């Protein structure tokens, strides 16, 4: 038995294989990054050379004015406010439906106007954008849940309308639901061109 083993073809020594694999592994760890392409989607208005028309009048009630200065301080409807209060006030504004006199008359008419300074920190700006998105997501979720009797929230409807694995009848019904929710709560965020209010 022992003799036949020594006579047969010699096995290749595989003990260094692990080292080679380790080297490759470390090389990939160093040269690659874990995919982290996530972010807040935003749509810019189309460029136009003409100055904006002056006669656009929005009822003051329907407009929620947010100003940010170079010290990252927030002024909402002429009142000083902390960042974490913003989401609640936006929801209040969207879902007011004429109850309080200085908020919107209906979600369809509600407009949010955001004006920041050139010296505002980008981090603060993103936090504000995030709060606005979160507020819209929350009211849309609530409305989607009442439409579907609590079975689907807005995100699920959105995913379902994009999902190509589902049959077309289900997808179309999701699409209709999505349109309905978007018509109830249209996202109207107006961003003014930043001004230099000093401080930078």
């Amino acid at each position: 038995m022992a003799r036949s083993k020594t006579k047969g073809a010699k096995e290749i020594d595989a003990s260094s294989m692990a080292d080679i694999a380790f080297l490759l592994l470390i090389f990939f760890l160093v040269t690659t990054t874990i995919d982290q392409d996530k972010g807040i989607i935003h749509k810019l208005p189309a460029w136009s050379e003409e100055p904006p028309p002056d006669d656009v009048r929005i009822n003051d009630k329907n407009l929620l004015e947010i100003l940010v200065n170079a010290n990252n301080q927030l002024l909402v409807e002429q009142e000083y406010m902390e960042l974490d209060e913003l989401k609640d006030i936006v929801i209040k504004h969207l879902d007011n439906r004429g109850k309080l006199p200085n908020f919107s008359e209906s979600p369809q008419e509600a407009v949010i106007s955001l004006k920041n300074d050139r010296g505002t920190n980008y981090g603060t700006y993103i936090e504000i954008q995030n709060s606005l998105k979160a507020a819209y997501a929350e009211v849309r979720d609530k409305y989607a849940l009442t439409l579907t009797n609590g079975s689907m929230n807005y995100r699920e409807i959105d995913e379902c309308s994009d999902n190509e694995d589902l049959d077309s009848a289900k997808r179309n019904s999701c699409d209709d639901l999505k349109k309905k929710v978007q018509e109830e709560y249209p996202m109207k965020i107006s961003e003014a061109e930043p001004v230099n209010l000093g401080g930078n």
Partner: protein
Amino acid sequence: MSRFSKDSGKKETPAISTASLPDIIFMLLFFFMVVTVMRETNPILKIKLPQATELSKIELKESVAYILIGTPTDVNTFGSAPRIQLNDQYAEVENVKAFVKQSYAEVPDAYKGIFTVSLKVDEEVTMGIVTDVKQELRKADALKIIYAANKKVEQN
């Protein structure tokens, strides 16, 4: 019983077989090759992305152009004022339009409809330079943008 005690008396504890070690490491290697992407740009800017909760994922990498804004890593040579990085080089605001147009031309036709510009901006940068870039993007008709951000870690 007697046989058992005889055996154990003769043999020493066997060494742990490392024959499967390469396989395990290769598995790890393939895992990392699949979930990671090659670094596309050299880090010439220091960028700490802001945190947010309402995040969306980019669908297709082929349809994305990246614009980076941050402070140079080599402060001694380039100063600490925020700079724009396109591809691997420092750029000025005026270059953005041409860069976006070129990136758009490089995108395969099938994905042109979902062309997105990803803004990777350091959270300490002021809005002035970001706004200038946004205006250039509007002029270049690249209206779909995504503010790159990391998932916010919940603090309770």
